[in-house]
């Protein structure tokens, strides 16, 4: 499914065929891409692309429960927003789901508009997450283009050391430090020194 179509996609995992088909139809009727599976395992068997996505997950599934599957997804580093649906949600169950990062918890039979709203919110969250993720990725790839020396010089520079001090620390000539520093600025696409400091902070946060 790695087609160029990067429009949002909604995954549905529910073991009840009628509900699965209904949700699939409902989502498609409002123009969303939808993909429905009967179990978590089946969901994982299919690769997913880079488009913004969210998951509508039934709590009570045959075999592995929805809550268990949520934990497994986070172990697998799949950070897709999850909207839970449940036949009868008790408080303990919904608290557990929300603590584990679920976006919403709807009790069947729910109002369809509520579900669509939750899905829209989930997709927005995911695309935002993806955008920030993308920026961070780019920054990291730029950083990785630096040589070891350049990275070292950059690390000293953002702490506020003068070129002379860095040269003394690293046992290099001031000229060499200056060249490394210029390369680092260029490769990191930092227009000002302040930009470089911010980038360094963003990298450290990752």
């Amino acid at each position: 499914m790695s087609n160029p179509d990067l429009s949002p996609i909604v995954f549905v995992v529910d073991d009840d065929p009628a509900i699965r088909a209904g949700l699939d139809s409902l989502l498609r009727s409002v123009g969303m891409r939808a993909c429905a599976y009967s179990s978590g395992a089946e969901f994982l068997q299919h690769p997913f692309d880079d488009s913004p996505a969210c998951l509508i997950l039934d709590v009570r599934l045959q075999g592995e429960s929805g809550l268990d599957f949520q934990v497994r997804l986070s172990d697998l580093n799949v950070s897709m927003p999850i909207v839970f649906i449940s036949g009868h949600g008790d408080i303990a169950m919904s608290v557990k789901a929300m603590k584990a990062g679920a976006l919403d918890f709807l009790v069947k039979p729910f109002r369809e508009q509520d579900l669509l709203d939750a899905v829209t919110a989930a997709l927005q969250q995911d695309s935002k997450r993806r955008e920030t993720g993308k920026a961070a990725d780019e920054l990291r790839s730029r950083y990785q283009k630096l040589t070891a020396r350049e990275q070292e010089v950059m690390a000293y520079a953002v702490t506020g050391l003068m070129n002379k001090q860095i040269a003394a620390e690293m046992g290099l000539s001031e000229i060499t430090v200056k060249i490394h520093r210029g390369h680092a600025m260029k490769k990191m696409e930092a227009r000002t020194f302040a930009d470089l400091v911010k980038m360094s902070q963003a990298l450290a946060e990752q």
Partner: protein
Amino acid sequence: MKTLPVALMAAPRTPIPPSVWLLRLGAVVLAFIIFLIDWLSSLDVAIAVLYVVVILMSGDLFERRGVAIVSAGCGVLTLLAYLLSHGDAWLTPAFARCLVSLSAIAITGFLALKIKASKDALQEQVHLLHRSEAFLAEAQRLSQTGSIGLKMPSAEMYWSDEARRIFQFDEQLQPTLEYMIGRTHPEDVDDLKSLIEQAYARHANMEAEFRLLMTDGSSKYVRMLAQQVQDATGCCEYIGALMDVTATKNAEEALHRSQSQLAHVTRVTTLGEMAASIAHEVNQPLSAVTTNAEAGLRWLNREVPDMGEVRSAIDRIKSEAHRASEVIRRIRALSRKTDPKHVQLDLRDVLQESVALVQREILRHRVHLNAQRSVEPMWVKGDRVQLQQVIINLLINAMQAMSGMHGKERILSAGLGNTPTGDVCLRVQDNGPGISAQNLPSLFNPFFTTKPEGMGMGLSICRSIIDAHGGRIWAESELGRGAALNFSMPTHEQAQS
């Protein structure tokens, strides 16, 4: 013999009535008159022979000893009269007359004693006969069993007092078969008639249970057993007993009613325990209905409605609505209060439906169910709802038994098979903690439970249901390795569908 009722109550010493004393006095006076005539008259006849009258009279007035004494007394009086009137003149005609009189007295005395003896014996027997008659009548009254006799082909009948009481016929009525048939409940008349005809035709004994319809509109259940006896003339007579079994029948019916009520109550209790599952079971299709309806509407409201999508949404709505109603139907069948109906069933279907009803419980308890459907149909005769109740009970018990078990897969298996004797057998097995040997025998007792919130009626009801189906139920367990509950019931193979 109007002394009989007295004899019946006989104490060994009964007061002697005044009339007897009067007669005794008369006898003594008569003896005295005879003595006087014998002594004083000069007639040349054996007056003393008249003592015979006194002796015969004494037969009715005295006991045997009294008769002997009277006879001896008469002899003494005869001799005395002779001695007084003739002195010691022997070998005279008078002495010969005296001897004749004495021998007549002796013979009469002897005969009177014999008569007295046989009369006493007869009286004793009559007494015993009346005693046994009284016992019989009392026994009949207490056991509500009357005697009847039926002569064929004349159709004359004999009814004992108790039989009359059962039929509510008065003593004057001459018993006939017609009257008995007339008292029989209209619905049972034909059966009774044909039974009597058949028994008569085949020279067989009669055994029948039928209802009587009384004049006040109430009905009685009676059981009749009669044996055929041929008499010398070739006529046959049925002699037998007629039992009023109304009380037994009513008690039986009441027992059945309360058993089926109890079964119903425990069924409803079970349903209550499964309430959450049932709610889910109904909620699921409802939720599918609303989702599909919403989707369908959205497809319709598009600028270019997509009829294909609308159609498939409506199709799903239809089948989901059907699914919900099916769930409701099954639950209603379980909660309905109906008398058990025994029909031919494939136990495989009953098992499958029961499993479907507890499907959600199986999920909730995170149990792995192993239910192999056997290839052969398992025909039994029974009540579908009650058998479902038993199976659901066994399944839920097994799941509850495993609920405290962690770190080990919970495996529940349910399977059908045949016992060596050819009965159908169902086995529900778990791998829970098992049942201790001390609990095993009391498992099916009412109010026996190991669960804090348990009522202890489930398995007891299961047993009474299986008993009513002519089967048996038993448990096997190895502590720590799970338990198996089994029941078996007779195969019912006829009119396969």
